[in-house]
């Protein structure tokens, strides 16, 4: 596989038919909410696209994101697209290790300086550089170093995008997302724990097609995939609107497929494409499987007060605050009341008897 | 000659009189104390009350005047009372009673007028400090006797 091979050539070499390729282009277009007329343009652009160099850095992560991408049950077009990029560094997937691996990264950086795509999964610990190092290089330094020559950065997974689980309270490593450290490069966040594979390839396809980054929401996510909340696209939404809720995981409501709001579903505040693209080759998504949405593509989803706590419940212990507040209020109130009483006593004591001679003002 | 010497008899006779006669004798009772009231409207009121020829309209008008006089004369709650003015008030009340149709008051107009006239006299006695016990009632017995005989 040569580096100069175009994407089209690479796909054909792997036996992907033109029809199959166009189907992928159409799917990509629809996922990105582009008009159908764009499909030929996407196809033409992808045909000619040079396989870009991609450097994949993994920091404080669980490899779930990589697993999500690679653990497809059968080869898919998106999987193959992924194969056709020039993944020059990915320490989980690459054969090389240690010095050789780092050399490959440095070589790719040098060769494609200013053009390569930097993909990051995992958060970066700022607490102590030693918390997470690769080949003796701290995550922070490696990110800053590698980001310099990147054309764009894709933060894959909630950890890279928003800090994710390492960032959860009390955040012992001082974990931060990529966006906290890199301010001068375009960053595309593809959050999710893990993110949906087709979303990652879709974003890559967009970049390859247009050479630009897609339209992003205020959290840096591609609008095409994160424009709707789970709740807005959820097939159980009618039950929510009617007020029919499963109370427990095995009650009648659960069996009837009623809304999981009371069981802690974060669908209403979670933006992702799960409800439309679904998982496992479009088989289902968590809510369809009977489990509330965890809200994994949202910042701080781990600190949202509990996965099984309804969205309207407080995220913190209010009861204790309430008890303290009532106690403090009672103490303060009694103290203030005592002051008032003392004052009234004083005034009563100072009362001058009013007689009939005191009813008119003296001059 | 009719002789009346006590209130029981007096009242019985009064209550037994025709309405017009009651009014007429009541007017005489009031006249007897009229000097105690400085309001000049009462004199004409009494003329109408005393006359057997007065029309319904005249009587109604006179009653209105008598009432107005009453309200003009009474002492307001809490204000300093003047017993000579108060005497005038009772004269006006007596005149009002004289003209009030039977049935609108718990007791007959003549009896009411007689009582109020006596109150006027009592009020006057509070000013003067005189003991007038029985004077006015005796005079009223006299007036009634004369009225019956006339």
């Amino acid at each position: 596989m040569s580096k100069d091979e175009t994407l089209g050539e690479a796909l054909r070499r792997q036996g992907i038919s033109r029809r199959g390729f166009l189907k992928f282009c159409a799917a990509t277009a629809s996922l990105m909410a582009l008009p159908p007329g764009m499909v030929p343009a996407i196809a033409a652009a992808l045909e000619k696209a040079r396989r870009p160099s991609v450097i994949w850095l993994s920091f404080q992560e669980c490899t779930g994101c990589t697993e999500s991408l690679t653990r497809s049950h059968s080869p898919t077009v998106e999987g193959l697209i992924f194969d056709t990029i020039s993944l020059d560094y990915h320490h989980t997937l690459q054969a090389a290790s240690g010095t050789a691996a780092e050399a490959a990264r440095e070589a790719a950086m040098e060769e494609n300086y200013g053009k390569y795509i930097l993909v990051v999964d995992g958060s970066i610990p700022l607490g102590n550089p030693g918390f997470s190092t690769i080949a003796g290089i701290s995550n922070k330094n490696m990110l800053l170093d590698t980001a310099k020559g990147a054309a764009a950065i894709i933060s894959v997974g909630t950890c890279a995008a928003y800090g994710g689980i390492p960032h959860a309270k009390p955040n012992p490593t001082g974990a931060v997302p990529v966006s906290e450290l890199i301010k001068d490069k375009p960053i595309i966040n593809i959050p999710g724990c893990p993110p949906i594979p087709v979303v990652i390839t879709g974003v890559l396809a967009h970049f390859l097609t247009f050479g630009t980054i897609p339209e992003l929401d205020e959290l840096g996510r591609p609008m095409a995939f994160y424009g709707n909340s789970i709740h807005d696209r959820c097939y159980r939404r009618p039950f929510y609107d009617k007020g029919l809720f499963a109370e427990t995981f095995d009650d009648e409501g659960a069996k009837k497929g009623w809304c999981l709001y009371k069981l802690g579903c974060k669908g209403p505040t979670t933006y992702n494409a799960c409800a439309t693209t679904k998982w496992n080759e479009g088989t289902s998504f968590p809510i369809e499987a009977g489990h509330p949405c965890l809200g994994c593509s949202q910042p701080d989803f781990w600190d949202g007060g509990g996965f099984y706590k309804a969205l309207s419940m407080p995220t913190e212990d209010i009861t204790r605050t309430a008890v303290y507040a009532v106690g403090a209020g009672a103490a303060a109130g009694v103290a203030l009341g005592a002051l008032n009483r003392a004052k009234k006593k004083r005034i009563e004591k100072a009362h001058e008897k009013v007689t009939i001679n005191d009813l008119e003002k003296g001059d | 000659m009719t002789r009346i010497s006590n209130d029981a008899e007096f009242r019985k006779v009064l209550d037994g009189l025709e309405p017009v006669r009651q009014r007429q004798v009541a007017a005489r009772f009031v006249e007897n104390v009229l000097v105690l009231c400085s309001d000049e409207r009462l004199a004409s009121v009494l003329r109408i009350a005393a006359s057997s020829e007065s029309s319904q309209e005249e009587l109604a008008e006179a009653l209105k005047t008598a009432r107005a006089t009453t309200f003009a004369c009474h002492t307001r709650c809490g204000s300093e009372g003047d017993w000579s003015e108060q005497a005038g008030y009772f004269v006006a009340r007596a005149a009002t009673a004289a003209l009030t149709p039977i049935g609108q008051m718990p007791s007959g107009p003549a009896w009411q007028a007689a009582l109020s006239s006596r109150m006027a006299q009592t009020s006057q006695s509070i000013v003067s400090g005189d003991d007038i016990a029985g004077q006015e009632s005796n005079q009223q017995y006299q007036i009634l006797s004369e009225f019956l005989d006339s």
Partner: protein
Amino acid sequence: MSASLDRGLNAFREQIDAPVAAFFSSCVHCGLCAEACLFYTETNDPTLTPIHKLEPLRRVWKQEYTFWGRYARAFGLTRPVTDEELTDWETLVYDSCTMCGRCSMVCPVGNDIAYMIRKMREGMAAAGHAPPDLVGATQRAVTIGSPMGVKLPALQAQIRHAEEELGFSIPVDVEGADYMLLLSSMEIMNFPEFISAIARIFKHANVSWTISSEAFEATNSGIQIGVSDIAAELVERIVAAAGKLKVKSVISPECGHAYMAIRWEGPNLIGRPYDFKVVHILELLEQLREEGRLRTTGKETQRLTYHDPCQISRRGGVVQQPRNLLNMVAEDFVEMPETGTMNWCCGAGGGVSSNERADDLRLKAFNRKKKQLDAIHPDAIVSACSNCRIHLEDGLEEYGMDMPVLSLTETIAEYLAGSEQAGSKE
């Protein structure tokens, strides 16, 4: 020593208690109290809204007795109460409020506005903002013993007059009597027939009673003007007389505020419970009726209605008694549309009738009573308060309505059974 803003504000501070604080905390300016107040409904003047009449008192409460208000004051967020303001409020607190308490019955959050007006008057009076007429009445009450200047000789003359009419004597200063009768100056001056009516009834029912020559005045200008010190002094006179004559009970006559003063405020004014009972004349008559001691013959055929004096009914609790009594002597007793504890004030109570400045307003407000009467067209109105009675007569005259106003006690006396008819000599 004389009245001053300082003394007034101190009186406000002294008067504010938990109910006042709860009331002010609860007001949401819904305006319903205005619709319950005849001074507003007959003038449509929003400044006469009952709760607004308390604004200076409310500010003192807020600034003195709330944590937040103290800070608001420190930061200049709330103005202190000034003497000019109290001048402005004088007519609101005295001229356009009879303390009838109808607003207190209507307030959805339960504010007893009349309770607060009573307290506010303490401060107004101490600050020298009581109406001159009330000041005069109060001074007469203390110095002469009657706000209208009625002295003992006057009462004696009226008693003699009554005795002459009755043919039997009226007990004065009888030690050991069961009941000591109080009278209002109004009764002595304007309605002396009340004395003979009572005498006839008591003779008929064989009640042991007396009048004290030392304390016969029932009214209490102190509670109208809002000076508890003076009110207490006036109550003490009655307590002393009752003690001297060793009576078991004191009878409050047909006068609204007198009942409030002697029955409900009295012990609190003097700071100790009485060792005698206080009954309203209507309570006593009803008790006699129940015991079968009060018997009547014949019935009034005119259409009668009963006007509840506010301080006797709504504020005093004597509500059912007059109705039972009236039914005993009236064939056609009709209630006004809003009656009993919801009755509309005549417009003259709480010192308003003593206050010449308020005359026009008082007569204007009477239009409310006119509307009530127009709904049922009675032939006569029965009431149990001389002040109501005078004002009803005044108002009826003003509005050209022809309707006598009767005293309930006197009406009962007219229908007494047996030979105790007026003038009969035994």
